């Protein structure tokens, strides 16, 4: 049952030599073998390499390794297929990358390895992180472990499902418009998108460079704090990473949230919100109040424009970032009579429908004659959206919202209507546009469906306010039963 443990539970037992890293790794591999035929969270994994990493961790533990220096020693983790691990495949769940293997480690991967983690699998995602259901993967469809007829969310659906199904102890994903928080909410895990610049993006395949951040999926808040501390920090290889000291995040989990001021944006509690989500969030707010926080209504007046701004800025940046996939230097190639024909043939055959849709939209909004009307205007409205949040944070320490308007929807339910799919991200996008941190954690289950489906509570914080978010989330979590439930 070692696969069901959290990072802190597992490392405590490893440190006491009650169990070995090999036992823990084997338990995860067994769970993958047992359940992943249904869940399909993993694109690939290498059991022999995983066990070799575990044996190396056991040797380090036997030699007296210090867990305070290597807080992930012997902990099996898996990563979204968008992060570079030297020698491992990297596909972004797209056909266009062919047989690509990473020639180097992402900065977060270097940090995980230095902390002792065992990195053993590639997790499914929407192609190039574009989507909200993981149905846009070119490889397979991941199922929600709470109900396999439903989507796990996206784009980091594999990262959320693998943690929820106890196939790994924790995972990493990336979040451009909610791609960590939304699947975490729908699968019942903790998901954290750090402040923009908190975590280096070096080795993360770029989708929208001004919005992308890497963050953890975990089984509880303490693990999120531990992983965030490991992966954070300034990096000379990412010029947008910010030279701020990294706090000892687990020390923020004091349990004391008395006097913390919470804001409820009135714009988030309207139209389209499922009644069971509203009642779970209302109950969570009451719980936070009973723990000593104060709650007030706030306003984020430009919320209604979040989705439109996002789909201009994110697609514009994506159209530029994905220009590099042209069949010249890496990945699949479809030949042509000249380079231009080769580019078009390669990209036409290699990209899936959603990626093409976004590249075309992004190319259009940047094209001559439309730049001012779309891209520049969207950047100006982004300023107004960001100012709304910063103004709200003059009054409150954190903002509380639902993470998603509904629990997990059914496979295929929205895949035919891109605009409806985009609108399912309404509560998570503002956080990326403003560059602030956001965390989702379980706050209950829907009760009106045949199966119980997790509901997520979103906490949004000031720039570099991750400690406040973690403290609030931890105090709430420890006073409620949700994190103790397992999907399988």
């Amino acid at each position, binding site marked *: 049952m070692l696969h069901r443990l959290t990072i802190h539970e597992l490392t405590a037992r490893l440190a006491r030599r009650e169990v070995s890293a090999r036992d823990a790794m084997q338990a995860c591999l067994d769970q993958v073998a047992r359940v992943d035929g249904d869940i399909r969270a993993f694109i690939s994994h290498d059991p022999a390499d995983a066990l070799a990493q575990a044996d190396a961790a056991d040797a380090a533990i036997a030699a007296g390794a210090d867990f305070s220096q290597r807080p992930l020693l012997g902990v099996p983790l898996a990563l979204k297929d968008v992060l570079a691990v030297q020698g491992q495949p990297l596909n972004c769940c797209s056909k266009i990358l062919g047989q690509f293997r990473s020639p180097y480690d992402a900065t977060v991967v270097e940090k995980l390895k230095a902390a002792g983690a065992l990195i053993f699998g590639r997790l499914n995602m929407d192609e190039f992180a574009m989507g909200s259901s993981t149905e846009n993967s070119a490889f397979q469809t991941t199922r929600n472990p709470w109900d396999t007829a439903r989507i796990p969310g996206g784009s980091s659906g594999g990262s959320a499902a693998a943690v929820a199904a106890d196939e790994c102890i924790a995972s990493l994903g990336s979040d451009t418009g909610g791609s960590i928080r939304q699947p975490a909410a729908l699968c019942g895990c903790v998901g954290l998108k750090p402040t923009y610049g908190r975590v280096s993006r070096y080795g993360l395949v770029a989708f929208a460079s001004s919005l992308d951040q890497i963050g953890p999926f975990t089984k509880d808040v303490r693990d999120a704090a531990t992983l965030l501390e490991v992966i954070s920090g300034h990096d000379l290889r990412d010029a947008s990473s910010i030279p701020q000291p990294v706090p000892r995040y687990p020390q923020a989990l004091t349990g004391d949230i008395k006097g913390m001021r919470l804001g409820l944006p009135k714009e988030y509690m309207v139209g389209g919100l499922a009644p069971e989500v509203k009642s779970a969030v209302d109950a969570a707010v009451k719980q936070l109040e009973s723990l000593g926080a104060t709650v007030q209504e706030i306003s984020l007046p430009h919320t209604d424009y979040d989705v*439109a701004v996002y789909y201009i800025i994110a697609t514009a940046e994506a159209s530029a970032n994905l220009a590099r996939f042209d069949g010249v230097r890496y990945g699949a190639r479809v030949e042509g009579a000249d380079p231009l024909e080769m580019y078009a043939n390669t990209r036409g055959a290699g990209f899936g429908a959603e990626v093409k849709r976004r590249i*075309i939209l992004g190319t259009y909004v940047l094209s001559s004659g439309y730049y001012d009307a779309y891209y520049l205007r969207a950047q100006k409205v982004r300023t107004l959206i960001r100012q709304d949040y910063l103004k709200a944070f003059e009054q409150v320490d954190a903002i509380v919202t639902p993470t998603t308007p509904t629990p997990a929807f059914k496979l295929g339910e929205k895949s035919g209507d891109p605009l409806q799919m985009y609108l399912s991200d309404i509560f998570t996008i503002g956080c990326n546009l403003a560059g602030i941190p956001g965390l989702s954690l379980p706050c209950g289950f829907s009760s009106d469906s045949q199966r119980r489906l997790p509901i997520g509570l979103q906490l949004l914080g000031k720039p570099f306010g991750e400690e406040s978010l973690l403290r609030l989330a931890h105090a709430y979590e420890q006073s409620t039963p949700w994190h103790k439930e397992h999907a399988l």
Partner: protein
Amino acid sequence: MSAPDFNIKYVAHLARLKLSPEEEQTLGAQLGNILGYIEKLKEVDVTGVEPTAHAFPMVNVFRADEPRPSLTNEEALLNAPRRASGLFVVPKVVE
């Protein structure tokens, strides 16, 4: 609101994407809808508002101008679809 003049063939050419006639039709219709939705940004008064390209702009990010290890030629070519003599091979550009 309807989308402005949106020529899918022209934009696909700019994006170096070969689309099938069916894709042109489906994507064209879907993008028409999305562009119609995006039109709502025209309601916002942005007079005097500066654009945000980046939430925390970092300016003049310098590093010491010192040589550092990087990929070898062999490593850089490892994933190349076609290679020869330590180079990437592409279709003929000049006659």
